[in-house]
């Protein structure tokens, strides 16, 4: 060994690394998301990967939709002939913040062991903890390849404001998918919105993709602890209960009373979702929320909604549902205040059970093809 040999090793290593890095920009490392150990070596997750405290929740947030679905139990092989497949999409309430997988709406419906049209009902939790109909649309568009027989779409006013549509990280970091949906359904969203992250050339190289690749890898590794423990989020013993006292501010997303500006709400995205569903029945559920009894609760229902805005939205969606013949279930006030946990839409297991009971009823009323 001499210094020339060492110099050559360093130079060759550097050149090979640079070539490999550039080659990665041509093959899109993000496509690796479809390759997953879940449903093979590890049990499929019962809800999408999401979380910040990975070392305790054995879970993490990532933006690769392929990887999210590939890790989900819904991707576990072809749909069996005797399965009546129900998917549930929605926000953190559907995903099940502070709830174990079996305590969520989907989990409780699955545990009920229902049958329809001579088939066993299997319910899949495709909720994701951000409020945006566009996020739901993206999930629904992807989920259609898993051939659902019924779609339960849990919505709330907070999913509708236009300024909520693209700001969620999962949406912002899937610009290509979102732009494709915008173009396909002529959505009322700007394809050039600054919120959408458009990767440049260097972002597509191995170095640029290092974070995304590391997340993909970590997701696979945490499959061990997910399978070993069944834990996919942290369950704090003490948490701050949902706020019930408010100040007098009643603006809603920069909108002032008395009129809720319909043009600022993404009804077009909701309708696009119904078009994506096509012949597959959709049950739209207005999700239950906390109706506070506290300071200024005559002005606000809860932390999320001033009364004037929510009431007008309910009237709007009800009217649209009637004119459109939608299967709409308005369950906004069915859960007592003591069954909410750390936010105005997060339910206790008992609250989820009440909700599941109502949704099961209407599910079983679906006509068979």
């Amino acid at each position, binding site marked *: 060994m001499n210094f020339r040999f060492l110099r050559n090793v360093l130079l060759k290593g550097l050149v090979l690394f640079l070539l490999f890095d550039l080659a990665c920009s041509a093959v899109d490392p993000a496509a690796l998301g479809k390759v997953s150990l879940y449903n093979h070596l590890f049990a499929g997750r019962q809800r999408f990967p999401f979380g910040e405290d990975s070392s305790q929740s054995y879970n993490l947030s990532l933006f690769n939709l392929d990887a999210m679905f590939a890790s989900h139990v819904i991707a576990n092989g072809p749909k069996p002939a005797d399965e009546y497949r129900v998917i549930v999409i929605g926000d953190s309430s559907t995903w099940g913040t502070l709830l174990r997988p079996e305590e969520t709406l989907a989990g409780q419906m699955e545990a009920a062991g229902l049958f329809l049209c001579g088939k066993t009902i299997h319910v899949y939790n495709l909720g994701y903890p951000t409020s945006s109909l566009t996020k739901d649309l993206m999930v629904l568009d992807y989920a259609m390849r898993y051939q659902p027989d019924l779609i339960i779409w849990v919505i709330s006013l907070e999913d509708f404001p236009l300024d909520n549509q693209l700001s969620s990280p999962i949406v912002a970091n899937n610009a290509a998918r979102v732009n494709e949906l915008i173009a396909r359904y002529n959505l009322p969203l700007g394809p050039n919105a600054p919120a959408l992250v458009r990767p440049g050339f260097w972002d597509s190289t191995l170095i640029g993709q290092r974070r995304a690749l590391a997340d993909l890898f970590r997701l696979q590794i945490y499959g*061990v602890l997910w*399978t070993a*423990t069944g834990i996919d989020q942290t369950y704090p013993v003490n948490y701050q209960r949902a706020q019930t006292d408010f100040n007098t501010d009643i603006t809603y997303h920069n909108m002032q009373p008395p009129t809720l500006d319909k043009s600022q709400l993404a009804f077009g995205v909701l309708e696009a979702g119904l078009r994506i569903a096509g012949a597959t029945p959709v049950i739209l559920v207005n999700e239950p929320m906390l109706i506070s009894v506290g300071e200024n609760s005559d002005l606000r229902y809860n932390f999320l909604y001033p009364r004037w805005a929510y009431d007008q939205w309910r009237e709007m969606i009800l009217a649209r549902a009637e004119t459109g013949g939608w299967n709409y279930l308005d369950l906004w006030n069915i859960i007592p205040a003591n069954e909410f946990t750390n936010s105005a839409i997060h339910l206790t297991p008992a609250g989820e059970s009440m909700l599941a009971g109502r949704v099961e009823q209407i599910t079983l009323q679906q006509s068979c093809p």
Partner: protein
Amino acid sequence: MTLALTLVSIVVAAILGLVTRNRWRIPLFLGSCALAVYAFQPVLPVRGLDFWLPTATLAITSLTWILTTPREQRSWRINWPGAAILAGIVLALGLTRYLGLSIYLTASRPPQTLQILVGLAAVTLVAIMMTRYTKPGKAVLTSAFVFIILLFIVLKVPLLATLVSMGLRSANHQSTSLALAQDLRWLGFSYIAFRLLHTIRDRQSGRLPVVSLSEYVVYVIFFPALTAGPIDRIERFVGDLRRPLTLTAEDLGEAGKRLVLGLFKKFAVADVLAMIALNAINALQVRSAGWAWVLLYAYAFQIYFDFSGYTDIAIGLGRLLGIKLPENFNAPYLKPNLTQFWNNWHMTLTQWFRAYFFNPVTRALRSGNKPLPVLVIIFVTQVATMVLIGLWHGVTLNFVVWGLWHGLGLFVHNRWSDMTRVRFALLSPRWKAVLNVGGVLLTFNFIALGWVFFALPDLSVSLHFIRVLLDLS
């Protein structure tokens, strides 16, 4: 140590190795090692402690040098540069509080300069007194030995460490109710203490070579080996240190190989395994025996790759600096029995215990008027050595159980090997190979089960996990 700090260490070592002229080698090493003691020290919640603990490292090391050095060799003329460098670094780091540079060199903002000056003056006074009025006699050296052991015990016994933390917090007008044993995380002290004890014992036995203050301090706090060893012997280390530094391509190649290997082991393999390795939380969450074994094996490999990765990095850094640090691991999990495992796992620690505990105790038990039976001697020395190694990691019941597990395992293997040696020698090579593979698997699983007590904080959690492993829960 973080990846960033490790990479900085590599750069510093490379620069030192490439630019250091022989004349400046020891002073530059001394300066960089002293700085590293502060830079590596983690932030501590007790105010100023993350400055005072590294300072105490330098002070204790310097004072131990005085105590272990014959009076005629404590010449101020030879050793003043070393003392000046150490004092200068302490003072200069203290002054960084006024320059806003302290975040790069010390864990937090250093204490006020006056406090540092008083501290330095106190250490200097003690050093002068020791230089003038002590000689490395039996009583002095024994006192130093006992002092370091006591310090070690205070740091390793959670209750005592918490009490000390309460005292320090009280003196700093901080809340005593928040005191924890972890408040006294003294970086590298376990290794520093063992190097100091080694020099004290070797002075007692007359084997310690005469070294200068600078050489002694560089040996004790050599930054590549500060956090995770290996524990070198001073005569070998100083031999390398005194040799002219001429880095060859082979040195650089070997250093690069060990560094790349070490970085990969530590930051790619061990840190990934750490995500799923057994810990106090998942031990109570795991639902089936099969997955419990997966977590346990992940821990077994994580601790190996973490530790041996650090050793590779230390050896690579040492090589850049012209110091050939001893090997610490030699494929320990591939050994067919427990005795061979311990000859190849953390080798420098086991050699230390062999030299300073196992052999002397064995000699003492054999040489009395009524020597104990050989079996009893083997049992006592092996179990006691392993329990002490356990206690070196921390004075808790779980480390005692871990030590007992290995001590008894070594004793059983010793007896088994004695009984079967002749019979096995007659076996065909094929049968020997089969038994070898069986031995590797059995030994690895025995060691893995022992890690349960090492990885988990208390006995009840460990026993619960063992019940899950055996599907008894």
